[in-house]
């Protein structure tokens, strides 16, 4: 039995609608368009999909972190900067993650 303001039925309705909607979003181009060739301008735009989405997802989380109630936090800001720079220099995702986490925990420890 869940303890939210919603009934179990409503929670399942949310889960199923989200699941179906998300699936349709993912299936959209793969399912409908298939192997028909894409126009050149579309391909040019799509080359920048990831680099357009990921910074936009992370920027607000860095500047207004949930954990601090949206207050700018020096530890998280430093960790974000180090992660980005380490990724640029090493071209390694794991290296960047490790550098970022070390900075985060180091700063939290030092500032505590």
């Amino acid at each position, binding site marked *: 039995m869940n303890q939210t303001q919603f009934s179990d039925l409503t929670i399942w309705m*949310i889960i199923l609608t989200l699941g179906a909607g998300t699936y349709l979003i*993912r299936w959209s181009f*793969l399912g409908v368009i298939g192997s028909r060739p894409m126009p050149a301008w579309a391909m040019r*735009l799509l080359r920048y999909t990831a680099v*357009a989405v990921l910074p936009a997802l992370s*920027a607000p989380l860095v500047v207004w972190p949930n954990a601090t109630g949206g207050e700018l936090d020096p530890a998280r800001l430093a960790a974000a900067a180090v992660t980005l720079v380490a990724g640029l220099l090493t071209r390694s995702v794991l290296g960047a993650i490790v550098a970022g986490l070390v900075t985060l925990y180091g700063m939290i420890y030092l500032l505590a």
Partner: protein
Amino acid sequence: MPPDLNAAADPSDRLTPAQQRALARTPRECFLHAMVQSVPFLLVLMPFGLLFGVVAGEAGIDLVQVVGFSMLVLAGASQFTAIQLISDHAPALVVIVSALAVNLRMAMYSASLVPWIGAANGRQRALVAYLLVDQTYALSIEQYERNPKLRLDQRLAYFFGAALAMCAPWVVASVVGYTLGKAIPPELALDFAVPITFLAMIGPMLRTPAHVAAALVSIIAALVFSFLPSGLGLLVAAPLAMLTGAWVEVLTERRKAARA
């Protein structure tokens, strides 16, 4: 490689040793290779999944519903959005619309995979769609772009290897997180696992001035439009950044053509 094969070829057509190794792999080897390459992502995905279980438990969701979220929605950022809004007592419709908006970026992933695996059969494409998350997309598209000569069966095997390695632990981690519950101290700062994963993926992507310009516009626009309801700022920022990238690419090509 015998030199005569390359005699007439453009230098950019020549394969590096790493590319030759990638092409020589059987689909089974591609599957396993992708699983191995997923390990760095797991280091961040697992705590993220744990955290989802923890916050879902705190919001009052029961265990079967947590599994339902992780198996049927299978999208970290939108699962967190939904749980956040449920604990904020938002109306069900607001929960659904906001969490779906967070996932709209996946239509772009879907579109950008078409040139690589659009030739697969309907059932395979349906399965790829189910398993298309940030991490499987990021890893696969990087592999396809680095090795454009991979065959379709190799590309699919690689994708499914990454999907098995990352999606199954996601579900397991959310169950474990739910069970561990409040035993995880907030000092661990798991909240920041998400931005760190995303930021770590961005650095290696900044290969050209066009990529850098797109990333800068993406950041600025996301901050400027952050007053919009959850997820919608992203829907403004991402297309702006894509247009910027494409525009800078056209400018660069024109300059190159003028010089030549």
